[in-house]
């Protein structure tokens, strides 16, 4: 068993779905070998594999949250939740975007404002450049 991989096998032994993480394909290789040695022809099984990219994480996360939001706002399961829940949930996406936007602006603004200006580093470098040129000239470097 490989900790970094998740493999799901279906009951008819012709479908395997797997999640590869950390670029570690060893679990997939073992499954493929297992299927082949058990006599199934290549035509009979389908292996669907994917690497969880950051994009997919976002798509997945947004889908889950989006589904939850739609469920509450449009009462998709007919749960007849209290009106208060619907009223709060309905504008949530916009609220969250605005909050995120403000947070982003504030964070970037703060970081630009506190970005260190290395005055002394520059002065030190200038002084060392002079010293280096002198020393190298003495050692015979022709610039």
């Amino acid at each position, binding site marked *: 068993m490989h900790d970094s991989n998740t493999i799901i096998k279906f009951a008819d032994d012709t479908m395997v779905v797997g999640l590869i993480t950390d670029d570690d394909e060893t679990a997939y290789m073992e499954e493929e070998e297992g299927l082949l040695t058990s006599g199934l022809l290549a035509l009979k099984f389908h292996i669907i594999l994917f690497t969880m990219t950051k994009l997919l994480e976002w798509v997945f996360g947004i889908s889950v949250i989006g589904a939850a939001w739609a469920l509450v706002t449009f009462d998709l399961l007919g749960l007849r939740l209290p009106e208060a829940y619907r009223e709060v949930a309905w504008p949530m996406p916009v609220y969250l975007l605005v909050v995120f936007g403000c947070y982003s602006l504030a964070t970037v603004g703060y970081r630009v404002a506190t970005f260190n200006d290395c005055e002394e580093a520059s002065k030190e470098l200038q002084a060392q450049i002079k010293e280096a040129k002198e020393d190298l000239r003495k050692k015979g470097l*022709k610039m």
Partner: protein
Amino acid sequence: MASRKGSQQSRVNGDKYSVLLPTYNERENLPLIVWLLVKYFGESGYNYEIIVIDDGSPDGTLEVAEQLQKIYGEDKILLRPRAKKLGLGTAYIHGIKHATGNYVFIMDADLSHHPKFIPEFIEKQREGGYDLVSGTRYRGDGGVYGWDLRRKLISRGANYVTQVLLRPGASDLTGSFRLYKKEVLESLVERCVSKGYVFQMEMIVRARQLNYTIGEVPISFVDRVYGESKLGGNEIVSFLKGLLTLFATT
């Protein structure tokens, strides 16, 4: 005191640090960066070599490098030139092939990265046994000299977007002053396909994928070329394209 501790430790450890210096038209800066490297490695006592990878510079960088070799010795200054400008990733691969150290420094040869931080990188690496140590301009007393408001805004803005999208676990992704274990650098360079700024970002992202440990050291970045090479729309567009590619593929 630091130097005695350093030389005792490196004699016991047998660690050797190879500094890769890809150069293109650095005839003025190369002697200076080499002088600084020799100074700080000498003072700290760590064992080192400097590998100059010149891509056929028309300004005579290689000749200057040969003079430096005569001054400091062929065991300390190694020349591995190439015929023409071939890009950073291949320069690293080329340089590593000839590196006899077990650790590799990568840095810019234009004096924006200061060798005085080298002992700090080494100590940080030993402290945590890190697979790679990255110099950061964005944390601690790291910073930049020579940038106006516009440049700082672009830098911090781009870094913020990168952090949100990639959550890389390192504060400065486009920086190129780093210390790698040699085998870590080898395995990362062969997996990376991007160019320019994005190449350095991809190295860190892949390092995280492979569960390598990353340490950070605040550094000061003295930009003396900013006035000549402004960060234009083209570079920003290609950065965003590279970022989105990494977002979608890693």
